[in-house]
């Protein structure tokens, strides 16, 4: 038998209080794949990632991590199970220093391990070394995004969920982030769920994808096939024919 999917979502209905946003969403993310979620603005991409992390209200359906039902467990417990999430907005603590942000990112780690991981991550993002005692709010937008990325990396989780990690970045920095993801999958064997505004870029590096439209799955399959689908691409993703 093949191993259980890393993430398995069945008939999920979720939203914020009485605002029902996601309708009957099902998907499977295999271990070591890059799974892409695309869709127009407001289609529920961020809500789906939040739901995977337990930050919304689930009305029905289930979320499983490696075969284990996690639908009702709190976010901090999901973090301990090896999930990491880089939110689209508010992904660093502006009032804390860079060092404190990194410490928070490794909250579940032992002190000695945390120190080692912080050292590693500072090698990957050397500019942070000079900023350790600066409050995160003093960083530029791009620097903040890289800090958020560093924070997601620190815990070395099994599965990363990135919500538009390249938004607002210069093309060079965006490419760095994308390369980082490819490296995570190839060298570290990590699983990645990626929400991207730049659908073309994402679908090019992704294995499989879903297209969300108004909170429903409008396409599910190979990323390359979605990229090749002229009609869907033009209608929902602003891709030129």
């Amino acid at each position, binding site marked *: 038998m093949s191993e259980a999917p890393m993430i398995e979502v069945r008939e999920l209905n979720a939203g914020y*209080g009485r605002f029902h946003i996601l309708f009957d969403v099902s998907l499977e993310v295999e271990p070591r794949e890059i799974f892409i979620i695309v869709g127009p603005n407001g289609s529920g991409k961020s809500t789906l990632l*939040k739901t995977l*992390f337990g*930050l919304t209200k689930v009305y029905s359906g289930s979320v499983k991590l490696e075969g284990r039902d996690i639908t009702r467990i*709190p*976010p*901090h417990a*999901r*973090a*301990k199970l090896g999930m*990491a*999430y880089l*939110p689209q907005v*508010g*992904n*660093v*603590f*502006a*009032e*804390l220093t860079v060092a*404190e942000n990194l*410490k*928070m*990112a490794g*909250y*579940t780690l032992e002190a000695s391990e945390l120190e080692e991981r912080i050292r590693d991550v500072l090698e990957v993002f050397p500019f942070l070394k000079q900023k350790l005692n600066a409050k995160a709010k003093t960083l530029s937008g791009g620097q903040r995004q890289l800090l958020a990325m560093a*924070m997601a990396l620190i*815990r070395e989780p099994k599965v990363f969920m990135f919500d538009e990690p390249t938004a607002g970045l210069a093309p060079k920095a965006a490419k760095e982030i994308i390369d980082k993801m490819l490296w995570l999958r190839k060298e570290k064997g990590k699983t990645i769920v990626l929400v991207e505004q730049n659908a073309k870029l994402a679908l090019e590096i992704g294995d499989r994808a879903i297209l969300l439209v108004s909170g429903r799955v409008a396409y599910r399959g190979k990323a390359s096939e979605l990229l090749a689908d002229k009609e869907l691409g033009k209608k929902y993703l602003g891709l030129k024919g």
Partner: protein
Amino acid sequence: MSILPSLPYTLDALAYASAIGLLSMGLSLTYATTKVPNFAQASIAMFGAVTLLLLIDRYYYYHPGWSVFLAGVVLGGLVTGAVAWLVYVTVLKPLADRGNTVIGLMIATFALDIIFVNVLTAYLDEAHGVHIPKLIGASITSFEPRLHIGDYIVYGYTIALPITAVVLTVIFHLFLTRTKFGVAMRATIENPDLASVLGVNVNLVYMVSWFLSGFLAGAAGALMAYTLKGVDPSAAELIIVTVFAGSIVGGLESVYWGLIGGFIVGLAEKLGMTLLNNFYRDYFVLKWHAPNVSLLNYEKFMSLGLVVVMLLYAPRGLAGIDWGAVARRLGLRRGGGGR
């Protein structure tokens, strides 16, 4: 007659202001974490006062000494911290989980306030010969260590309260900046969702914040019993006004500014009003034969007046003021004047 208040009165005012500062700091803490405006903060503090009363009756009645202040702060703080923790766990959290808004939670704290004042009052009334057999009523006057400095008697609590405020603030600051859990508390205040996805048990942070807020309230409440000359739980209904004024002046969500706001408001009520009263007495009553009324009965005019001024000119409180800009502006003005 001098307009300036006497030394013992000034010290008493500083002690009162320190206590209000601690209460406002606690109030701001639980507001920052759980977004509950806690109208029971002062009546919760009365648990600290009652703890002190029992301590004196059971032990210090026979062994008077300065350690009564330390014992009052620690035991009063612990008991009251436990009460506040219970309030959150058994009442406010379940209500919040059922989708109650800030209004519902606030009303719940009103109800708790009434319950606590009445339960504690009943307990103390019952006390004639039952719970506090030795002390007469709930009066603790004359059970306070004191110093004689020159012609003045300096009451111990007027020294103990400011010291307590400074020590607890320093400890609290070290907790918030030097411990992992303290940093997690600041992180949670700023962004609970992000804190939780990084592995912080946000609910535990909330529970601890209520315990700490209760500890600050109980420590202040125990020593404040001295400034009130006795333990009267219904005094909470007046104190809470000042405590809220302090938090609002501070900006409601910042613990440090809450402390400072409470201190300023407490000082304004006691010293500010006394200055105003003495001024009125010396100039208006003596020179102009204005009606001889004591303005001291109108202390709350000072605290609420400060709130009004704050809401008009700095609605986000002292915390919302850009102090760097203020300093620059003052510097510029000075430079401009010289030109």
